[in-house]
């Protein structure tokens, strides 16, 4: 069969000189400028927020200077404020939460990515992610009505009788305090760490795992020697994202930490975090107290930002590992 030549159909497909001018890409350009505008708004809002906080905290900063970070006074009568107890409370409760949550989260992640039968992976993964969707205040209520009596009645006495000689477990314990706060936080950051670690493990090239298995490794050895060393930075990133969440968490921890302005080595002692102090006092605060609270907020923002940026960089580096499994 003779194929129709370009010459035959020339007239039909080329009715006239097609214009080089005109606007065929209007939609594209509208979408681009619209998108840029919306994305720009996000940046503007963030910048405005930071500026506003700096402005509102200026009175406190000019009065207390850097000493604000090292003073443990919180005296609204004399208008003398310091952030140290809250910094301490935030750091200790967050680290405590990590100590409890990280081993469990890694266990869950390894189980879900490496060991679980495929029919189980979806439902369990979904349930874990669902934990992250529970509102903070619900965790708080559960903390007060379930966790508090449980801690006071069982966990506290057991810790006291076994590890009571440690400075960590001194004094009376009614179920509210640093320990309960750290525990609540650990439950709340567990899904974050577990689901990101699972994704990081899944991104590890399967050829590594297969290479190890083919050498006669057990499944655990394949994970331990071939997979984990290659995803270490991604796992650290997952932990830091969890930490970022713990640092900023407010409602639940405010409800169970006891809200006492104090620095104590004992985890049984009531305490406060930066977030809980702001939540507790902002509605009655004015003038210098408000400025001091805003400065705490600024410090909290800076700390959280720092951890988040670090975490993102680490996760990103794992994703582009040489010979990585993920193509992105």
């Amino acid at each position, binding site marked *: 069969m003779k194929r129709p030549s370009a010459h035959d159909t020339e007239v039909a497909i080329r009715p006239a000189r097609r214009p080089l001018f005109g606007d065929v890409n209007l939609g594209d350009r509208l979408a681009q400028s619209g998108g840029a505008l919306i994305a720009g708004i996000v940046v503007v809002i963030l910048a405005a927020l930071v500026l506003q906080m700096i402005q509102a905290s200026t009175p406190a900063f000019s009065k207390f200077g850097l000493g604000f970070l090292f003073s443990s006074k919180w005296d609204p009568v004399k208008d003398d404020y310091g952030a140290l107890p809250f910094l301490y409370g935030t750091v200790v409760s967050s680290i405590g939460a990590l100590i409890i949550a990280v081993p469990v989260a890694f266990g869950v992640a390894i189980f879900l990515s490496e060991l679980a039968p495929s029919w189980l992976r979806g439902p369990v993964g979904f349930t874990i992610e669902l934990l992250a969707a529970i509102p903070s205040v619900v965790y708080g209520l559960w903390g007060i009505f379930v966790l508090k009596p449980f801690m006071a009645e069982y966990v506290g006495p057991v810790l006291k009788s076994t590890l009571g000689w440690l400075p960590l477990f001194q004094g009376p314990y009614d179920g509210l305090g640093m320990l309960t706060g750290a525990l609540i936080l650990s439950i709340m950051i567990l899904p974050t760490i577990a689901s990101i670690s699972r994704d990081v493990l899944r991104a590890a090239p399967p050829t590594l795992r297969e290479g190890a298995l*083919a050498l006669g490794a057990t499944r655990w050895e394949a994970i331990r020697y*071939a997979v984990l060393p290659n995803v270490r930075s991604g796992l650290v990133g997952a932990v830091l994202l969890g930490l970022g969440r713990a640092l900023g968490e407010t409602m639940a921890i405010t409800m169970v930490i006891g809200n006492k302005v104090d620095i104590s080595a004992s985890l049984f002692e009531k305490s406060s975090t930066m977030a809980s102090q702001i939540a507790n006092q902002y509605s009655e605060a004015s003038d210098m107290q408000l400025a001091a609270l805003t400065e705490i907020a600024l410090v909290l923002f800076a700390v959280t930002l720092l951890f988040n940026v670090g975490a993102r960089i680490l996760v990103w580096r794992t994703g582009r*590992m040489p010979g990585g499994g993920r193509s992105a």
Partner: protein
Amino acid sequence: MSMMMAQSKSESQPIPVTPPRAAVAPGIKMEAKGLKAWFGKSQALKGIDLPLAENQVTAIIGPSGCGKSTFVRCLNRMHEVVPGAHATGTVTLDGADIYGAGTDPVLVRRRVGMVFQKPNPFPTMSIRENVLAGLRLNGRRPADAAALVETSLRQVALWDEVKDRLDRAGTSLSGGQQQRLCIARALALEPEVLLMDEPCSALDPIATARIEELIHEIGQRYTIVIVTHNMQQAARVSHYTAFFYMGELIEHAPTDRMFTQPSNPKTEDYITGRFG
């Protein structure tokens, strides 16, 4: 014989063959009987009966998706590592069924080594550590690690190229060197059988030629099963060739006979390039 003979689909003559060595009547090292394999619900192998001759090289050829990779992965129980995959039937190693009750796949894999399509040295390990990785994984401490590293790397003709940089990362090597490192890593465990799943498909022609030479040499001491989509390669390196098509074994014969007088018309069509 040119190592880099161009593979052409339009070639209508059977490929001329110079077998490496005459296939002497050998014993049977491994044998598949009624081997069926699935990925989920789709069946990849439909009942394979295939003996593998001891200390001989057997090539598995066939078009993409014919089940040749699945078959070798069944020989060291790597097939079941893929989620949802399973296999039935028997595969014997020295007469013992590796799918039998109570058989530990980990112990099977210590006797049946494997080299993959893409070189996969462990990126966090040095060249030396990569060679010793199998022993470390198996909890064995070689009496003389340095000697074992040297022997293993010499077997794959890599020693002279890397002896001055054993502490460099395994992934710092070229693709062909990485693949030879992976073969050394498998050989360090002194396997009885070595499975090679398209070991040259990610390599350039020169690196491919080196791996083929290597197969020649170690093929005298190990039972080797090599999957290849390259029929010239099968003709060059193997004593026996098995032709798979759509999950079935179509023909299994000494390589020289397979490529000169195939008994099945499908085999002839495939090796003469009429399909695949």
